[in-house]
């Protein structure tokens, strides 16, 4: 798989999918991002990120139930794969490492 690296928005989407555990589909992700990060994003941006992450192997997907509110179309539910978790952990430790190297600043902000 090419592109083991994540963009900022991709990382956010990946984390949101992880936090929504099993209920993550595009609309839910969009709402969650608004709720947590207070960021208004267009649904197409979320689609773009989700499918790309799936192509990269960080997400897997399955069909959920079809509902009337969706015009009879099924939801595509996303889940973080183990590769996705690996990457999230690695990025987290990279950041923690970096944070620990700037003690004064981390004191001030913390």
């Amino acid at each position, binding site marked *: 798989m090419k592109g083991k690296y994540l963009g900022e928005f991709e990382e956010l989407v990946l984390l949101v999918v992880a936090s929504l555990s099993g209920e993550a*589909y*595009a*609309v839910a992700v*969009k709402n969650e991002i608004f709720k947590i990060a207070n960021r208004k994003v*267009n*649904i*197409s*941006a979320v*689609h*773009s990120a989700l*499918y*790309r992450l799936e*192509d990269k192997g960080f997400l897997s997907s399955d*069909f959920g139930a*079809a509902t009337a*509110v*969706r*015009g009879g*179309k*099924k*939801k*595509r539910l996303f889940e973080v794969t183990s590769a996705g978790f690996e990457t999230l952990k690695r990025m987290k430790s990279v950041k923690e490492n970096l944070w620990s190297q700037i003690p004064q600043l981390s004191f001030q902000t913390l």
Partner: protein
Amino acid sequence: MQSQDNRDSAPPRWAVKLLRRIIDASLFDDIYGDLYELYQERKTLLGTRRAGHLFIIDVLASIRNYQLRRKKYYSSGNSMAMIHNYFKSTFRNIVKNKTYSVLNIMGLALGIAACLFILQYVSYERSYDKFHANHPDLYRVLYKVYRNGELNIDCAAAVPRVGPFMKEKMPQVIDYARVYPMGGVVTYGDIQYREDRMHMTDPSFLQMFTFPLVKGDPASALIDPNKVVISESVARKYFGNEDPLGKILEVDGEHQVEVSGVAMDVPDNSHFKFDFLISYETLNNQTRNDDGSASSETAWGWYDFNTYVLLQPGSDPAVFDKQFEEFLYEERGEDFEEYNFKAEFPLQPITDIHLYSNLLQESEPEEQGDGQAVSFLTIIAFFILLIAWINYVNLSTARSIERAREVGVRKTLGATPRQLVYQFLTESLVLNLIALLIALGIVVIGIQSFNQLTASSLDLAFLSDPFFWLVILAVLIIGSIISGLYPAFVLSSFKPVSVFSGQLSMGTSGNGMRRALVVFQFAASVTLIASTIIVYQQLAHMRNIDLGFDMTETLVVEGPAVFGIDSLFASTSKSFKHELLQHPGISSVTSASNVPGDEIFWTNGIKREEEPDDQFTTIYNVGVDYEYFPTYDIDIIAGRNYLESHSTDTGSLVLNEAAIKMLGFPSADEAIDQRVTFWGRPKSIIGVVDNYNQMSAKTQVAPIAFPLATRAARFYTIKMDGEDYQSAFNSAQSTYEAFFPGNPFDYFFLDDFFNRQYENDRTFSRVFILFAIFAILVACLGLFGLSSFTVLKRSKEIGIRKVLGAGVSSIVQLLSREFIMLIIVANLVAWPVTYFLMSRWLENYATRITPGVSVFIISGVLVLVIAMLTVSQKIISTALTNPVEAIRDE
């Protein structure tokens, strides 16, 4: 409110449709589901209108996801597989119908090969003098003299003063170089040759032109007097492996020149060729006047100097000519007034010299090319290629019926018209590529024979020329598209239903187009054949024309260049001639300054004695002895020849008829005993000779005076009896060597020498014939393919006709009628075109034929016969087939 909501519960339909286009089908369901969910949510929150707007915005924003997952299905997967399939089906088709493929490929290959040959030849002809680094700014100074408003002298050589004068007056001139042609016998030790490519030239010559020296310094090699720069091959000829620098060569037994440089041999595509370049100062020393000036620097009337100027980059020669005219008038105006003439020195780009110049005193007159012929050939090359492409189009569309089923199946299985067009274009690309490779092979193998045939010296260097490959690529791409596009569109337009239900009538598609193309092909063939016949007739005419003199069994020996004591020459020459006549095989001998077929450089002023001085006009001179006219069997139409018994004949003059006319005498008889001023002395006309072709049948006969000059023995003409040829020749050689020791015995036969002038025309006709054959061959390949398919598709009809009692002859007639009609139409198109083109070509010749009706009829019938031979084999075999074979399978 509620009811309205229900009615508008779905987002705008067009936006949904748009989304379907934007999003890949595999993702549409879930993305549309998400957008729909958002829409419903917003509808309750914000109202239908606002939700609709936001839905549209979401759809438009989704354009960013256009690429999502699309690549996988289309670009990478599908088209690679399809391209693979195009090639696969192309090769299957080629193999499946071998005759057709071979016809098609060979036709294309021959066409492309012919085209490549011609392009090589043409680009070589056009490459003349382009190897000079300065070639865009190098010009030759021409010399034109007008008398009484008429162009009297139109010469490639100018006067010695004009070069320096231009440099003094015109700021555009960077430098000038004069070239004075001479020739002579060169001696080094006991090595001795007569050399023709010997010139005297300014030191600047080696810097203006790109003639690199392998030894010596180009800047200084030609500054001092008595220096010579020789070519590499000459250096080998005289010095072998010795170092030539500093060696002394003897010219004509009197001048000693020291080798100061060795130049690389002049490339073949140079209009100017040299083996020896002698410093100009040497000439100045020979023409030094009492006051220290040299005629070869100051003369305004001695026009033997090919003068070249190098202008500042980008200078406009037209502007230059105009400005220079004023300076010239300042300097020369008085003389122009006094002697009632006007001279001009227009500039000619040196790259135009080879193809577009045919003046007096060209540096290499026999080598001059013909720009018109080259353009003709370019057109022919294009036509042959066109004929080959037309073949392809014709064969492909004619065969369309066979391919119709394939197209039907492909379409039924979901092929789009575009994919079919691609498929057929791929086929034409592959066929063109194979043909191109074969054509390259033909060129590589055939180039030697082509060189022999056309007396050119093309080599395979073009294979490493990027421009050549660019042309090849263009031919390939343009060829594939031109020849592939029409069949591709015809074939891809078939409707599967009509193909399978058999409604598609056999081969009607593109019938009119096909006929038009066949007519075009054969019109081109008829044009080429008729033109070839006319070229041939014209050449034969020039060779067989009564030139007015006899050149059979005539040996010409060049007169001695080295002769010890000048005053003894006349008597030695006389006893030499007398000695030769002792041999029974030699019937007569004459010495003269020129022989027929040799360009006359010797000119002079002449006028009728009673006329004022401003009436002098230029006339060519041929110095002759008493035997000249009888030896050549030239008719004396009035008066008499010079007679040895008449001591007063030194004050007499013989002229030709053209000269009599120029001087304004009413007839030759009335000119006898009239007096003229010639060489500044009064002379009386004693004889008038027939206008025989002294120079060439290509040009008008010029006015010539034949002064009695027994010492002007540049050539000895020896007329043989033919019986004892070998011993006569041996005797001539031994006598020459006894009388003129130190001179090489250089000889030629006059008929060869004279006909050498037609060498270019003959080459041209050979090239013409070769490509006419190419064109007809290619056209016939096409016709053969076409006729076999036409016959094939009518085989059932023929079967039924035979069953119902039609005879073989009536069937042959039926099948041939269409082709005969097409060829007759082609003839009607070709005749006027040929007549127009060839009339223009014939205008180049002074004596020319008028193309007769027979030429056109012969070429028409010839093409008809060739075409009928081509189609008859197929037609007759079909007519003879047992009808059962044709009808039984239904």
